[in-house]
């Protein structure tokens, strides 16, 4: 019993540390990457290559006063940033980084991650409503409708993968794809000929679920000032920021596990955690690359994309896969 | 082409009383239409109308397809008059700039609004009201635009002291 408790504590600490370190250094990577794209150097003064920038930013945020706007709903206002960060950390618990590295493997890992992911929408809604700011309310309503409409194609696609692999256990899904890149779910197989398209749909959805550009309607800075976190300063803002990056890591991890074979090596050699990390950071680099290339979509363009393109295609894919599984 | 037709149409407002063409703007002159040398003045037609002829004159220009450039005022304090100047121009290549001006006494500066004809006159009239205190009768929203909301001074009047 006590061993289990210790296990849990160690797992949570590692998950928090991993999430926080990722969040901090992904901000650095994003700023450096964006700067390179725009032909600037980016943060390069503090420490070598500006590597001390994230901790210094953290200190700055922590030393600032936490302001609660007059008339705001205090409880919701305080709860929202925590709610943005906590589910992301919880999701790490079930992600298998390699065969032996997973805090707690669950048979319903996919379900659990999706359950926690949908709590992110709640955080945004609380933040927007609690701040008593018109911009924030509009942003939160946008973000919720966006999350709702993108969860559907995302789930349908995930179900397709689950059907093909016959399990909701993330570890089992990874293991089913072991043995070289031709076994990965991203490549079409007899049962699922449209898998590359599924991968793209899943990728787009994870962009939208994490409120990343070009789907960052929830913070749409040129329209809604800063969206749902307009009124947040200090670490409240910091938590939202970290939550966003933690969610990106979750999204990339899930994509890797469902489509890119988890920790499997493309050539069937030396499988291990490094492959997993390489894959998720490549995906995150693509996230960053996309953000600094495209303008923002409109709210109706975003919903049109989901309801008119992504959902029909993913539904078709689901039915096709189901039929093929039945036939063969 | 449009120059002649517009001139005739504006001329009709005055029923024959044409002032001498040599009269300079700025010095007092009677109402009427003048043609100006574009090379020197930068516009072709210069019509001074009475306040009650203003709407008729602007309607003529509206029907002829002119667009509104600006509205402004001039304070002729020596003559105890305020002048409102309306600039019109055309989008097509039949270049014709028309200036409509009207003079009103300084102590009772009221002219009818033309924002019913040209919606874009709205801000120009508000601005002129800000700067000169000229009231545009019938204007839908005559509150200070460029000056502070509570401004009760008119800085472009010549007797304005900051």
């Amino acid at each position, binding site marked *: 019993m006590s061993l289990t408790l210790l296990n849990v504590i160690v797992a949570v600490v590692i998950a928090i540390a991993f999430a926080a370190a990722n969040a901090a250094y992904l901000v650095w990577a994003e700023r450096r990457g964006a700067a390179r794209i725009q032909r600037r150097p980016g943060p390069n003064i503090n420490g070598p290559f500006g590597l001390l920038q994230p901790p210094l930013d953290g200190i700055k945020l922590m030393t600032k006063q936490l302001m609660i706007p007059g008339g705001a709903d205090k409880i919701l206002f305080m709860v929202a940033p925590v709610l943005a960060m906590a589910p992301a950390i919880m999701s790490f618990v079930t992600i298998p980084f390699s065969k032996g590295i997973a805090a707690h493997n669950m048979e319903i890992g996919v379900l659990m991650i999706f359950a926690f992911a949908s709590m992110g929408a709640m955080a945004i809604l609380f933040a927007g409503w609690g701040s008593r700011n018109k911009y924030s309310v509009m942003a939160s309503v946008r973000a919720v409708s966006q999350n709702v409409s993108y969860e559907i194609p995302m789930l349908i696609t995930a179900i397709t993968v689950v059907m093909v692999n016959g399990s909701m256990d993330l570890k089992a899904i990874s293991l089913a794809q072991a043995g070289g890149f031709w076994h990965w779910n991203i490549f079409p197989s007899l049962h699922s000929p449209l898998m590359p398209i599924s991968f793209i749909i899943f990728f787009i959805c994870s962009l939208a679920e994490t409120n990343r550009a070009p789907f960052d309607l929830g913070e749409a800075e040129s329209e809604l000032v800063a969206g749902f976190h307009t009124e947040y300063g200090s670490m409240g803002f910091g938590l939202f920021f970290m939550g966003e990056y933690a969610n990106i890591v979750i999204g990339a991890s899930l994509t890797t596990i469902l489509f890119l074979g988890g920790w499997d090596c493309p050539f069937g050699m030396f499988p291990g955690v490094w492959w997993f990390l390489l894959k998720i950071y490549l995906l995150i680099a693509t996230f960053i690359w996309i953000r600094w290339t495209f303008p923002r979509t409109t709210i109706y363009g975003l919903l049109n994309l989901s309801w008119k393109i992504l959902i029909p295609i993913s539904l078709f894919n689901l039915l096709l896969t189901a039929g093929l599984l039945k036939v063969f | 082409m449009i120059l002649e037709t517009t001139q005739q149409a504006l001329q009709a407002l005055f029923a024959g009383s044409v002032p001498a063409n040599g009269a300079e703007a700025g010095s007092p002159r009677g109402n009427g239409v003048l043609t100006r040398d574009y090379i020197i003045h930068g516009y072709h037609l210069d019509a001074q109308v009475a306040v009650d002829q203003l709407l008729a004159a602007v309607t003529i220009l509206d029907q002829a397809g002119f*667009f509104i450039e600006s509205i402004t005022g001039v304070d002729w304090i020596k003559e105890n008059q305020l002048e409102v100047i309306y600039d019109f121009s055309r989008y097509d290549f039949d270049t014709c700039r028309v200036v409509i001006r009207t003079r009103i006494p300084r102590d009772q500066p009221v002219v009818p609004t033309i924002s019913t004809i040209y919606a874009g006159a709205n801000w120009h009239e508000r601005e002129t009201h800000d700067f000169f205190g000229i009231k545009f009768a019938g204007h839908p929203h005559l509150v200070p635009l460029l000056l502070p909301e509570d401004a009760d001074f008119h800085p472009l009047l010549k007797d304005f002291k900051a």
Partner: protein
Amino acid sequence: MSAPIQLRPDETFILNVGPQHPATHGVLRVKMEMDGEYIVKAETVLGYVHRMHEKMGENRTYAQYLPNLSRLDYLGALGYTHGHVLAIERAAGIEVPERAEYIRAITVELNRVASHLFWFGAFVMDLGGFSPLMYAIQDREHILDMLEAVTGARLTYCYYRFGGLYNDVDDDFIEAAKRFIPRMRKSLKKYAALVTGNIIFQKRLEGIAPVSAEMCRKYGATGPVARGSGINFDVRKNEPYSVYPEFDFDVPVYHECDSMARYKVRMDEMEQSLRIIEQGLEKLPSGPIMTEKKPKNIKLPVGDFYQAVETARGSFGIRIVSDGDKNAYRLKLRSPTYSNMHLFDEACEGMLIMDALAFMGSLDLVIPEMDR
């Protein structure tokens, strides 16, 4: 997307966009009555950076007023200064040497490209794309370097004088301008691929915020806003001034009336400006840059003078009422964005806020120029 909607008055709320808001690019306030994300009614509130330039025009001599003009529009200052010197030269009957006029045209067009580049970057940033702004600023920097080498300033130039120029261009400038043109053309191709062709960008602008030609006429909209509504109006062509008749260039006109049309007009205009600069550099005559008798203490004859020029934002007009003194009796500045912005109130009714702010970006606002 922008269909009018029916609702009860008690269902709306007021949203203050500005005076400090990222989309207004300065201190402009739009009071919007909103129904959810739809705008029911909008009222623009101006005057936050009003400085009464017109009164200053009455207090200062004509020469002393020169620096004021570049404070109107900090992005395309030369166009406004050009209008001022042309008005004085017209009224006082000053002949300007040909070389000076050519240099004026070249620098004005360079400034126009710089202004449009900055607008392009800021507009795409309004739509959420940040990198194009940085690329645009890189290109603009070359222009500012060139203009700095000639005029001594980067934004508020004060370069033209009555009867000529402050100083002559040198060979370095001509070389730099010649190098700049092909580089800029390459950049324009890059922008076309990166931004104009982008599906997200197209979907955001096409068919959004229609401004009819009739509406332009009623509000007196000029410049790219009018040209995006199918009106072939450019003061450089309609009322040729300076040496523009000598140049072979087209006026881009689009008939779609939407935000995309206004965007395309400006992008095409940059190309046309490059053509003018190219021809200007080729034809640049040698000779003096100042009239033989440098005018000092200018006094204009009694009268009322008007001069319109095409600036980066539209038709800028300057009216000088002179009583024969050495400063103006009345000096009126007709700023193009003032009229262009005016139609925003009417045009944005029933639009989504994000479309309305994109529309506002497509009007190319420079607030100090509007407020004067």
